[in-house]
């Protein structure tokens, strides 16, 4: 039998026993259709949630198959710090995870951490995306933003020099986040990989001191500034000038560099952000008795939620809705006590959080011999020339990190208010793409597309309602194991251990690959009209000559990688 129309011209063409002569494929049922399915990969919530723009769905899928090196390289494409971010990123990728409804969100950051760690010993050769170029950029600040930008530019063939004021690179990853959350050999290894790309690093070189900003502008075709927030805000209470009132970031930096530091016994830590928490947990580990005072309530605390839990678990008391009013010193200038006042929450302020107001007459004294201030940090932009537009909180930039000067770009904490390592990494990469475009005399690629690894998918975020849950079994989210409390508060050992391979595979197998076709064959199998075929090079094709538009393929796609339009 063939696919062609059968021509019966006379009764002689009719077989003696009535038998078919051709296939029904002559009958093009396309005309029956009033709706049309089409393959449309969509964005998973994790992909849209990652500030570094990492293709999360892709690396999870690779990890599911045990392809750990490929998974690692997928992350390296957008983020040179998988092992670091797997540890310290507050993982906004997990916030909208559709697994919420089937045993809990996926523990994505632990998988990222595993991919970073499991490839620890692999000496990966740098991969360059483009040929070497004779243009160069200067990067001010070796924090995550600066290093991310340097990495992306080096991969694109540019000469890159990073100028760093401190004696070691890493920014707040090195001098802010303590060892018990991020062991420094992990950070060093990931920075070394960036330097392997031919990035020149000039340490102990503060712009505005050792070299001027004009000098590096003259030396390079473009400059990226990402100098972070390294000035601590004053306590704003009487007695703040006393010797033992010390900024949290200074304490943390000294601990990180193993510099000499004299600590008190009972330490009052003021603030509710990461600096406050890390300072308190660090001094606890050095044998002191820290106590936190924070002027708002727990809900308003800007620190990462898990860190707050860990701190409370470690037994550090927090006085919420409490404000220090006055630090009392003795005749030798040594702190003896701090007078505090209780607060209550009033109307919302500019930040949308309710403004704390003092409760009159609620003053009380707290014993303390040291005060660590951690009520916010500011950028030190004194090195910039006055032609770069900036405010006290940071350099003014557009979505691409472009300043008012065409060859000057800025990002990270000193230009945006985002305040996480991963945001800094994302800014560094996005701005690198903008600098690349500037140096080539082109327009930069679409902001939204470079912000998230779109890779041919639509920006539509797959919602739970679009998942067909029958194809997924409920399974619990695994949590990492932490050191016993009595042990962990005595040293700077990393608190949480990584997942075992088995745990990783449990988690990855829970991933539903929202919006992304892993070729499960459901559309192929369930089409009543044999109108779906599998492509030899991956994916499927709908034969629109025959599709009747029933929409079964759309309904049975477990993860919304097919859409339908009404005609």
């Amino acid at each position: 039998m063939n696919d062609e129309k059968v021509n019966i011209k006379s009764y002689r063409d009719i077989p003696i026993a009535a038998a078919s002569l051709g296939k029904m494929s002559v009958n093009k049922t396309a005309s029956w259709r009033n709706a049309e399915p089409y393959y449309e990969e969509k964005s998973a919530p994790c992909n849209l949630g990652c500030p570094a723009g990492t293709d999360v769905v892709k690396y999870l899928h690779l990890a599911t198959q045990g392809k750990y090196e490929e998974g690692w390289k997928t992350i390296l494409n957008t983020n040179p710090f998988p092992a670091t971010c797997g540890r310290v990123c507050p993982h906004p990728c997990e916030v909208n995870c559709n697994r919420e409804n089937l045993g809990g969100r996926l523990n994505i950051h632990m998988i990222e951490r595993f991919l970073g760690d499991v490839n620890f010993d692999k000496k990966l050769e740098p991969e360059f995306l483009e040929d070497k170029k004779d243009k160069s950029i200067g990067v001010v600040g070796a924090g995550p933003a600066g290093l991310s930008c340097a990495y992306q530019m080096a991969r694109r063939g540019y000469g890159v020099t990073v100028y760093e004021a401190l004696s070691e690179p890493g920014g707040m990853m090195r001098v802010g986040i303590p060892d018990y959350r991020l062991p420094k050999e992990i950070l060093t290894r990931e920075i070394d990989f960036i330097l392997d790309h031919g990035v020149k690093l000039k340490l102990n070189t503060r712009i505005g001191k050792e070299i001027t900003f004009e000098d590096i502008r003259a030396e390079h075709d473009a400059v990226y500034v990402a100098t972070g927030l390294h000035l601590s805000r004053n306590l704003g209470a009487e007695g703040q000038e006393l010797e033992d009132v010390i900024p949290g970031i200074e304490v943390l930096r000294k601990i990180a560099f193993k510099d000499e530091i004299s600590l008190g016994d009972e330490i009052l830590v003021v603030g509710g952000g990461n600096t406050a928490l890390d300072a308190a947990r660090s001094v606890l580990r050095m044998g002191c008795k820290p106590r936190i005072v924070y002027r708002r309530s727990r809900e308003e605390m800007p620190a990462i939620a898990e860190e707050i839990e860990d701190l409370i678990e470690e037994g550090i008391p927090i006085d919420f809705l409490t404000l220090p009013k006055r630090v009392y010193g003795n005749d030798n200038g040594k702190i003896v006590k701090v007078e505090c006042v209780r607060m209550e929450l009033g109307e919302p302020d500019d930040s949308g959080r309710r403004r704390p107001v003092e409760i009159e007459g609620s003053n009380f004294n707290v014993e303390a011999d040291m005060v660590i201030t951690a009520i916010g940090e500011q950028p030190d932009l004194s090195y910039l020339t006055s032609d770069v537009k900036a405010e006290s909180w940071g350099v003014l930039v557009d979505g691409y990190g472009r300043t008012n000067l065409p060859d000057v770009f800025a990002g990270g904490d000193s230009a945006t208010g985002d305040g996480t390592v991963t945001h800094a990494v994302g800014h560094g990469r996005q701005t690198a793409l903008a600098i690349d475009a500037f140096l080539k005399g082109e327009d930069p690629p679409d902001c939204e597309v470079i912000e998230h690894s779109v890779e041919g998918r639509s920006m539509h975020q797959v919602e739970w309602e679009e998942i067909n849950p029958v194809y997924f079994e409920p399974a619990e989210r695994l949590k990492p194991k932490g050191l016993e409390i009595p042990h962990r508060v005595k040293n700077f050992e990393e608190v949480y251990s990584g997942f075992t391979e088995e745990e990783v595979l449990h988690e990855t197998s829970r991933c539903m690959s929202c919006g992304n076709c892993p070729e499960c064959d459901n559309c192929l199998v369930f089409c009543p009209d044999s109108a779906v075929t599998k492509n030899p090079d991956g994916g499927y094709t709908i034969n629109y000559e025959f599709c009747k538009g029933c929409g079964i393929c759309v309904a049975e796609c477990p993860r919304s990688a097919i859409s339908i339009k009404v005609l």
Partner: protein
Amino acid sequence: MSPQIPGQITYDIPQQEIMSSGHLACPGCGASLCMRIALKIFGPRTVLCVPACCWAVIDGPFPYSAAGVPVVHCAFETAAITATGVRHGLDIRGIKDCTVVAWAGDGGTFDIGFGALSATVERNENIAYVCYDNEAYMNTGIQRSSATPIGAWTSTTPGEHPKEEPKKNLVEIMAAHRIPYVATATVAFMDDLTRKLKRIRDMEGTRLLHIFSPCPPGHKSLESDSIKISRLAVETKVFPLYEIENGLKYTLNHKPKGIPVQEYTRLQGRFKHLTEEDLKQMQQRVDYEWDVLDKRISLFA
């Protein structure tokens, strides 16, 4: 259904399409999908004996055919005996490598072809019989059959007088014949369906597969819901998946979740006239029938 991990869903179904596109089934027709899958499993050396029913039309008009294998169109009541005749004819000619399949609707099986089927099973003729059950005479305009469930609307049991009699239990009747193999299946449980199709392809003697088959125009359901409805039929215990060997050995193939029957009926306009009270009674009936089956299964495991 086995847990499905992204990228690791595996269907054991041949890629080759035997049934062609362009057939005349309505969009979303369960009967066309189960034929497509059945032919992939049966293979090209298959003869279909199709009596009057939707499938007699779906296959296409002379001189065309969609099945991709020989189809013997036969009279409404004769699917089983036509298949018997074809089998004997092939046997006489020494052709053993062909699967002969009677493929009939519920009307042709539960009602008009019932006598012929009973006689065929009684003689244990060497044929496979597939009844795709869309629970009414769909081809002629949705008239009730003895497979129509109680309470359902059809054109002969209108909403004011929905069907009063419960569905005939074909599987039990077949078991009472001590048929070598009888089983139920739906397209929503693909692995189960394909395993059973292989079983009826490879066995000797009469074997019957009863496939629940959603029909969007006849059930007044969405075309895209056919698989979902099939799945719910099983999970609500309305259509349990089980098999019986030699009329005595019962096996339950999927433990139903016991989802409320309403989840199943609400997707189908043929049940839309049912009141809360009607639905309560329907639930009780389903639970009762399930209990009976459950007892049989534990008694004759």
